[in-house]
């Protein structure tokens, strides 16, 4: 199957596959951890049992997704060394300590308090339990901060020198961490995680509203999710725009690929809505474009000049078609999310948020939209910074391990098979957990997921357990 590829291409496939599979879970668990924190806070404040039931409902879902995130994340922490040894040797002194801090400040925090959060309410009481939930939520955000600092440094490296072994040496840690693209990327990704969760929660709420299974709980979660959509989607579009301008400043070739600008436009560049990028001929076929709009968006002036890929050497250009399309997918989903958020505000104003069947149907359909947008966004930024691993300094083609192609092919096939099996099963269980009734804690009603509750001990399963 892979005999025509060399080790480099296989290693790139493998990284793209494993990191794409991984990012799905943190994108969901960052938002869900914060959501659980809010639900528990609302329960403690109002003593309204609805919030506690929703907390329990989402807690089990979080646990499954978090477990998948942990195991796929461990793979990532070894992937750098197994497949990208040259990169690791060179960049390790800079990115290694940042990842070390991620482990020390985030992973241990999450892991240490996750057990208490999932199993421990009876043992520690509500106060400490709430602290544990808070620590897990905080851990997911700290983790995002460090790993995005790492990624951003690879995109816009600053604060380093290069030693006689070709290693990157930290000179100014502040400049390494707060590199030019980091604040933008961090905000954009955390908002993306919140939106992803909001649309999953919204879809589950809408599903149960349509099924009329548990109207009160379903409405509560649907309403909370739609508030998030209405508030965060516009913020995300602003953040994305700011991130784009930052990219234009530091990685112009990426923006050229996103825009499909093969040629420079000295008198205002058009915004290409759709078209088929043709990298060989250096043009966009069948382009549908709005004159001068790209210059307006990127330079805030209709006639501002905008350079194109003709200013970039061919061997330093990213693959245009992938970046062009993934960017459009991400933006399209972003605006669809904005549309749903606004629609929900209208329904809320009219008092039909709990009864507008079409809003509920569309919300169900939009459930996975956040994941698609997150993946499309990461494809845009990662493919767009090619052909470099450390932008402007280290080529991807110079970064991989001296491993024979058959070894990389074997492990790639193994990862693909295992991930589809394991994460496919996990997705199935997640969907089943989401489809169960968000109200009834009795274990007799539902196979599997709810045996004994963490909050109040459920009846012993099957009635034969000794105590």
């Amino acid at each position, binding site marked *: 199957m892979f005999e025509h590829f060399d080790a480099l291409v296989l290693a790139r496939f493998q990284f793209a596959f494993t990191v794409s599979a991984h990012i799905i879970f943190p994108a969901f668990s960052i938002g869900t951890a914060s959501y659980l924190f809010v639900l528990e806070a609302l329960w403690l404040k109002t003593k309204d049992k609805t919030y506690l039931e929703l907390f329990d409902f989402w807690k089990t879902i979080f646990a499954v997704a978090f477990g998948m995130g942990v195991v796929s994340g461990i793979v990532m922490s070894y992937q750098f060394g197994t497949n990208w040894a040259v990169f690791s040797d060179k960049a390790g002194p800079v990115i*290694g300590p940042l990842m070390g801090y991620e482990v020390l400040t985030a992973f241990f925090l999450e892991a*240490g308090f996750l057990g208490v959060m999932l199993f421990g309410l009876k043992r520690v009481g509500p106060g400490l339990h709430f602290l544990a939930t808070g620590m897990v939520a905080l851990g997911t955000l700290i983790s995002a901060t460090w790993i995005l600092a790492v990624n951003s440094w690879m995109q816009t490296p600053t604060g380093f020198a290069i030693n006689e072994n070709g290693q990157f040496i930290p000179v100014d840690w502040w400049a390494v961490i707060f590199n030019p693209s980091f604040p933008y990327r961090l905000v954009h990704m955390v908002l993306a995680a919140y939106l992803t969760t909001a649309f999953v929660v919204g879809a589950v709420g809408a599903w149960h509203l349509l099924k009329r299974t548990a109207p009160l709980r379903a409405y509560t979660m649907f309403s909370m999710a739609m508030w998030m959509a209405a508030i965060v989607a516009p913020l995300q579009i602003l953040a994305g725009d700011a991130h784009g301008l930052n990219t234009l400043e530091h990685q112009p070739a990426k923006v050229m690929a996103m825009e499909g600008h093969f040629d420079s436009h000295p008198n205002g560049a058009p915004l290409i809505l759709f078209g088929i990028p043709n990298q060989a001929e250096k043009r966009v076929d069948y382009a549908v474009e709005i004159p001068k709009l790209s210059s307006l968006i990127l330079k805030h002036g209709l006639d501002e000049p905008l350079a194109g890929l003709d200013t970039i050497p061919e061997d330093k250009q990213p693959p245009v078609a992938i970046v062009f399309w993934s960017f459009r997918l991400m933006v399209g989903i972003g605006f669809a999310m904005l549309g749903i958020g606004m629609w929900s505000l209208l329904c809320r104003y009219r008092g039909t948020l709990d009864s507008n069947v079409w809003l509920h149907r569309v919300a169900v359909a939009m459930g996975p939209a956040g994941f698609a947008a997150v993946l499309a966004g990461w494809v845009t930024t990662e493919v767009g910074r090619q052909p470099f691993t450390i932008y402007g300094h280290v080529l991807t083609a110079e970064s991989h391990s001296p491993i024979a192609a058959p070894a990389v092919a074997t492990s790639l096939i193994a990862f693909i098979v295992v991930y589809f099996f394991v994460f496919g099963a996990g997705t199935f269980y997640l969907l089943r957990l989401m489809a169960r009734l968000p109200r009834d804690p009795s274990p007799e009603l539902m196979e599997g997921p709810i045996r*004994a509750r963490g909050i109040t001990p459920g009846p012993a399963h099957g009635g034969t357990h000794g105590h």
Partner: protein
Amino acid sequence: MVIDLAFIWAAIIAFAVLAYVVMDGFDLGVGILFALFPDKKDRDVMMNSVAPVWDGNETWLVLGGGGLLAVFPLAYATILPALYMPLIAMLLGLIFRGVAFEYRWRTKRWERVWDVAFAGGSLVAGFCQGIALGALVQGIPVVDRAYAGGWWDWLTPFSVATGIALLIGYTLLGSTWLVMKTEGELAARARRLAMQLAFATVAAMGVFSLWTPWQRPLYLDRWFGFPTAIFSVIVPLLVLGCLYLIVRGLRTGRDAQPFLAALGLFILGYAGIGISFYPYIVPTSLTIWDAAAPPASLSFLLVGALVLVPIILAYTAYAYWVFRGKVRHGEGYH
């Protein structure tokens, strides 16, 4: 006085790896023992006894890997390609056993599938870790800052024997953990197993000790040359002491003692390996100073490690404390 940052970091990484081996060791051991406890209720209890802590245990593996990248990047960049196949297999094993903690409770029809995934994943992960250890001990060639061997070099009789030895050790940790954390018939069976596994572990350590010195001239010198040969006398005596404590704890019903003494066996074995190849981090190609990152990297992360590792140990201890005592049927959040 010049502070030797590379040495301090070698000590911290060594501690992280040891913490991983003993902590994930017992929960991998519990997973492997699934194969010997077919009863569903026993398995429920076994899994629940480690469910609240396994994730934290495995985080030490990430610290070992991430820490190596941070402070000994050249070691990370040469050891991982050298151990490519066993490490990938270990990761896949960890995936199967990790998800089994949640999946197993989500289905009736496929419960057996995830039981097999839990036991099989634990077995593969443990075996591959042992192979990786053996392959490291037998040495990794490095030329021009890159691994210079083939992708099957790790596979030798010695590394396979190390893999088996580690599996025996992990099942000892797992069975003594069950002695400590469970009761009734399950604990009684675990006690009988622990007794056999204690002797098997010490025998495996003996084989490993007789075999290791012949892997590299350096080890031979360390084992039989002065002053390190002193340890060659002391360590075996301490091993026998731990064996005595395990047996005595099992016989007298002091349920925590066998587990703690089994941890002692692991610490002794680990110290023995450390003495064998210090100061090499990639035996016998790179010393800790060859592989160390520049001082700016070492000191930056050291500040965090010195502050955070004690805090981590404190809340990890707290998490264990919250879930102290015997695990009973029907407990857990599932």
